[in-house]
């Protein structure tokens, strides 16, 4: 459930970057303050382990498909929240940089969606209480499954919120939600069972390894990160929800939001929009392109078309010009390459 750059708006991407960067800073301080420097190499190799674990898959009975480990909850169990969050963030960073899974701007969203919930919600608030002081395989299995499901459901919900707030995809809230949540219920159950199987194995073979996390109890027990995190999540989720509740999806703000995605979220919509339209008006040859619909709707919120009312002249001009600039871009690239090869 990696989000891609192409599907988010700068405002959403930037906002989630700030949230994730804050969490990374917080966790980095936590990890450094912890005296156990064993965790430095351990976090590193466990991050790599997540990739390695994904080389191995298993068949899901009765479906003919196969699954593999996601790893968020497992890392939280093995490392404790802060170190696990940094590790998950590093995994996602490498995926974004090298596999183009997600993207640079979407990285903030992905770190938050896939890291925050397992580390600061599912593990401390669900897994730990359910497993209790003396774990046994049955308890581990139940706790891991419930925790994984809850973590993934929250993550999936955030994906939906972020996508819709970005307004790039056309999927309506309800439908998207109905698509995402059940899929991630299934994924969560599988993830929980896998996590339970692995943790159960380790617990039997070398129980002292799992105590690592108890030795780091001050970190795991600190309620502050959880509270802060919950607050952030609540603001994100609650803000989004109330926004959806109060706004008719076809209403003015929705349209504005979609057309003027660059505008600041906090700024009064009219101001941001007005300023942008002004810029557009003064700079564009064909000033009514792009903001025409929104401008029209300012007078009449009920007017239907959200997309710009393009006249054929503008679009032909756009296509011709676009094709030419594209060709020019490739020509420049080619020339540069030729010159470099000539020099070499």
């Amino acid at each position, binding site marked *: 459930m990696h989000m*891609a750059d*192409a*599907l988010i*708006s*700068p405002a959403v*991407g930037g906002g989630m970057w700030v949230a994730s960067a804050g969490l990374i800073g917080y966790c*980095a301080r936590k990890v*450094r303050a912890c*005296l156990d420097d*064993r965790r*430095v*190499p*351990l*976090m*590193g*190799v466990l*991050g*790599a*382990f997540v*990739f390695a*674990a994904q*080389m*191995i898959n298993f*068949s899901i009975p009765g479906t003919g498909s196969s699954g593999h480990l996601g790893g968020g909850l497992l890392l939280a169990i093995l490392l404790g929240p802060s170190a696990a969050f*940094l590790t998950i963030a590093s995994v996602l960073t*490498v995926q*974004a*940089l*090298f*596999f*183009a899974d997600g*993207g640079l*701007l979407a990285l903030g969203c992905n770190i938050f969606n896939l890291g925050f919930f397992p580390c600061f919600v599912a593990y401390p608030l669900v897994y730990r209480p359910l497993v209790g002081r003396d774990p046994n395989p049955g308890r581990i299995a139940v706790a891991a499954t419930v925790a994984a499901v809850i973590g993934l459901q929250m993550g999936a919900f955030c994906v939906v919120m972020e996508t819709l707030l970005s307004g*790039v*995809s*056309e999927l*309506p809230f309800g439908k998207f939600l109905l698509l995402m949540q059940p899929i991630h219920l299934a994924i969560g159950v599988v993830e929980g069972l*896998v996590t339970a199987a*692995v943790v159960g*194995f380790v617990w039997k073979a070398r129980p002292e390894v799992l105590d690592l996390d108890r030795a780091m109890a001050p970190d795991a027990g600190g309620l502050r990160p959880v509270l802060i995190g919950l607050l952030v999540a609540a603001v994100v989720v609650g803000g989004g929800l109330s926004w959806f509740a109060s706004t008719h999806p076809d209403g003015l703000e929705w349209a504005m939001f*979609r*057309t003027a*995605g660059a505008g600041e979220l906090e700024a009064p919509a009219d101001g941001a929009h007005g300023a942008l339209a002004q810029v557009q008006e003064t700079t*564009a*040859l*064909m000033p009514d392109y792009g903001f025409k619909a929104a401008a029209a709707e300012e007078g009449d919120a009920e007017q*239907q078309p*959200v997309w*710009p009312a393009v006249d*054929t002249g503008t679009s032909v*001009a*756009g296509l*011709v*010009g*676009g094709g*030419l*600039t594209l060709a020019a*871009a490739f020509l*420049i690239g080619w020339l540069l390459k030729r010159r*470099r090869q000539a020099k070499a």
Partner: protein
Amino acid sequence: MIESRFADIGWMDALSGRDTPLRRIDPRAKLLATLGFILAVLSFPKYEVAGLLPFFLYPVVLMSIGDVPVAFVLRRLAVVAPFAVFVGMFNPLLDRQVVAGVGPWVMTGGWLSFASILLRFALTVGATLVVVAGTGIHDVCRGLGALGVPAAFTAQVLFLYRYLFVLVDDGMRMARARALRSFGGRGMGMRVYGHMLGSLLLRTMGRAERIHLAMRCRGFDGQVRTLTRLRFGFADALFLLGWSTAFVLLRCFDLPRRVGGWILGAGT
């Protein structure tokens, strides 16, 4: 399929090891310029198509000054494209407003925004891949560190990257060993899987202990120190400023429509 991902990472690693003009630019300049590029591209309205096209200049120029093979970028794009297509696909289905029509063909808003999504996707993914291939993980992390990302995090990314190959090899060998001895799907189930992953995990943790020992032997005290320092020179500033200006201009002045309008105007 997954294995090819790691083949690609090796590829990129090899690419980033060469000395090219792109490689010599300070990673901070490259990272910031790329971020500006992504922001500019994504800040376009959702139906924008033509305005995005000039932005191909950035990845294309970087590709040529970084000697990054086009085929490589295209292949990676193809591998990750299905996701963008999957989510964008709903736009033509849900948004059927007719925007323009030529004869029997009509263009709906949904198709327009779908095309826009695909373009954004190609631009952002392409630029990121090219920059990473022309910089290397090591410099990316140094750049991030110089930009204020906590050392605990950059060290973590480097550690992960360092052991990625070692552990992926481990995982792959295990998967192969199992595949050779499972018949008719037996042995591919959850139980065996849990045991395999568990023992891979224990082995990994054993390795972490040995690495820790090696670090301790050389005076490790919880902080990873490095010598190398970055220098942000004139050329780097020029790179960053030049591209940022270009992005702002391309974003604000509708180049394609101006060029197109001018040509069509001259034609009549």
